[in-house]
């Protein structure tokens, strides 16, 4: 695990200032899923807004506490995916991968769950510290959509909480789930997407080669998949990150 001080420096690289005892939660989701409503309900008026360092994309941070723990909630830009090249997706992806959040909260739209699960699956490939929030339950009820949350939780193997943030429903349960994940009191092993045998074989080979990267915070399977994608923007972010980490190692 990255030592506490480095974690701190990394968060500052993303413009996130936290006290050492505070837990960082990244808030991700598709556009228009009520992500900002969840953010506002959790943090109230204890917010700080600005831009991401060097980017003209809004960055909002808020504070809330639960069970005597203080959380900093970082609102990421709304994205459908973490694999494209738009500046918003790049910020969301880099923060989840390299900002070392203690938990990532993925907000999904209950009325359009299937499409939203794409993002949840992508986040699950990056980090096991995830809470899935199925929001807009009030809208879903209006449209007579019922969601089998227990089945969803069993399928994804991560905590799933149903909320209707606009009316404050499910917020306590959400805080509890975030607390459990962020304090590591119930470690999860999210279900991983299995690709075709050819891809899986290539991933295995790459993982063996990548074992030289002595950086446990970076998920090797995810890294291998991105190398297979050959997406230049992701590869550039990864090498920037590894340069930073090795820079510290040398000075330390």
């Amino acid at each position: 695990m990255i030592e506490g001080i480095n974690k701190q420096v990394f968060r500052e690289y993303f413009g996130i200032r936290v006290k050492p005892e505070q837990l960082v939660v990244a808030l991700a989701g598709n556009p228009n899923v009520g992500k900002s409503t969840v953010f506002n309900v959790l943090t109230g008026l204890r917010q700080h807004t600005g831009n991401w360092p060097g980017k003209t994309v809004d960055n909002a941070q808020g504070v809330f506490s639960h069970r005597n723990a203080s959380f900093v909630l970082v609102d990421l830009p709304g994205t459908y995916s973490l694999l494209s090249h738009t500046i918003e997706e790049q910020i969301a992806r880099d923060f989840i991968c390299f900002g070392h959040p203690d938990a990532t909260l993925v907000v999904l739209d209950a009325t359009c769950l299937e499409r939203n699960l794409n993002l949840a699956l992508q986040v699950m490939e990056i980090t096991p510290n995830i809470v899935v929030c199925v929001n807009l339950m009030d809208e879903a009820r209006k449209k007579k959509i019922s969601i089998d949350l227990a089945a969803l939780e069993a399928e994804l193997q991560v905590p799933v909480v149903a909320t209707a943030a606009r009316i404050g429903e499910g917020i306590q349960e959400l805080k509890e789930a975030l607390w459990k994940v962020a304090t590591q009191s119930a470690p999860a092993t999210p279900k991983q997407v299995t690709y075709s045998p050819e891809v899986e074989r290539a991933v295995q080979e790459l993982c063996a080669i990548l074992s030289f990267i002595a950086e446990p915070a970076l998920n090797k399977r995810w890294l291998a998949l991105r190398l297979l994608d050959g997406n230049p923007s992701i590869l550039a972010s990864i090498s920037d990150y590894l340069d930073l980490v090795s820079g510290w190692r040398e000075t330390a």
Partner: protein
Amino acid sequence: METSPVSLSLADLSIGSAARIVSLELGGLLRRRILDLGMVPGTQVRCVRKSPSGDPIAFQVRGCIIALRTEDLKNIKVFPFNYVREAAR
């Protein structure tokens, strides 16, 4: 995978008709984007609306409505369910 009897693209669907996506003949960013929006081979889509000029065209995909440019739709090949030729209407 079904093969299309007639080579049809999403741009050829008339309002109300449905089809199954066969392939995305697109590359790079746009391909990734369309996959992320839930249009993958095998997905059912229904044409729900066209703008007055006929471009863009809106489709229902997995419970959401997505509008795309005709230029891009031409590269999304589909297998129609209830194909009604526009000329025959």
